[in-house]
């Protein structure tokens, strides 16, 4: 299934998170959340195992609550398509510390590789830009991924959006914890919040 010249998703995600410092990262349901775990577990990783279509909105809520923290949503094309309206909501709020990276393999990899709308018609970069996220780009090289990873730390210039074309290889699953309460409270604790 792999095409030439498409990026390796694990390499993309490990590059996005390599010098993460204080970044809070949200991984959308599916392979994206596994990719984040494969890059190394971290107290500020928000792994999603459900709530399809909600990753970008979780990112928005976090970004508005913590405007000085870089917040990075890493999700797939199918998960982003289910929450397209959230790009309009984000475009209106314009949180300057929020970045969204879509790992676009043009397929629903978790359910058997059925093609997604991005394979033939939907242009997520066009959607994001048309929703008011001016800094929206299509990424096809690792140099661009590295530049985006740096830009994530500029919390005054977002929101930004990148659609990264990746190959559709099915990789070994690296599974993060599935305990949502643990995941959320670990982030809160790392940000200095006490339990209720």
């Amino acid at each position, binding site marked *: 299934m792999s095409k030439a010249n498409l990026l390796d998703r694990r390499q993309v995600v490990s590059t996005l998170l390599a010098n993460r410092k204080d970044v*809070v990262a*949200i991984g959308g349901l599916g392979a994206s959340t596994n990719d984040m775990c494969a890059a190394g577990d971290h107290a500020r990783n*928000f792994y999603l195992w*459900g*709530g*399809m*279509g*909600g*990753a970008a*909105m*979780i*990112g*928005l*809520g*976090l*970004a*508005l*609550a*913590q405007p000085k*923290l870089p917040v990075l949503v890493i999700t797939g094309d199918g998960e982003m398509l289910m*929450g397209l*309206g*959230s790009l*309009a*909501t984000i475009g*209106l*709020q314009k949180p300057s510390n929020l970045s969204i990276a879509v790992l676009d393999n043009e397929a629903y990899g978790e359910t058997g590789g059925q093609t997604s709308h991005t394979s033939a018609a939907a242009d997520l970069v066009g959607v994001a830009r048309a929703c008011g996220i001016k800094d929206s780009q299509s990424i096809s090289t690792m140099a661009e991924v590295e530049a985006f990873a740096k830009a994530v730390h500029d919390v005054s210039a977002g929101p930004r959006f990148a659609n990264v074309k990746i190959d559709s290889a099915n990789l070994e699953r690296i599974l993060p914890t599935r305990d*949502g*309460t643990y*995941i*959320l*409270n670990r*982030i*809160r604790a790392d*940000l200095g*919040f006490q339990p*209720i």
Partner: protein
Amino acid sequence: MHARADAADTVPNWPDDIFATLQRFDVRQVPYVPDAGHSKLIQRVLDSSTMRGIPLTTEEEGVALLAGAWAGGQRGVLLMQSSGVGNCINMLSLIPILRFPFLTLVTMRGEWGEFNPWQVPMGSTTQGVFELSGVQVLRASSAAEVPAVLEAAASQAYNALTPTAVLLSQRLIGAKVFTK
């Protein structure tokens, strides 16, 4: 043109009671899909310096937003009308999984003198949908009971992490009237 039967000629005061309670509980993020019944409260939120009103394209966005807000240390409340509750169903699964404080205020349609039959199916199942999804339901049917109901709802949602929906009945808001 739309008007409200039974609604007082003057602007109601109960939205101010709601706003005051939300302020006292330090609510900071207020995602909403507009509804006529919420219009005064939404305006209060948009005029507020401590709350941020966040218009949504669909109600489920608000559930996910509140999870992120809590991860970042802020409380929120979701404002919607009853027809939006159905849009939220799958996203409501985040609430028991992540255990974040969830409070939503729902203006009811499809009951008490409803004119539009298309509102009735979802209005009739709103409470059931919430209860099946693990969200406790409280109801306010008159302006006089709004403060106590809001106080109870906010207390259990924010202090006890009990997911709570307050249904603001059409009797309170006034049934929507369609005139030619």
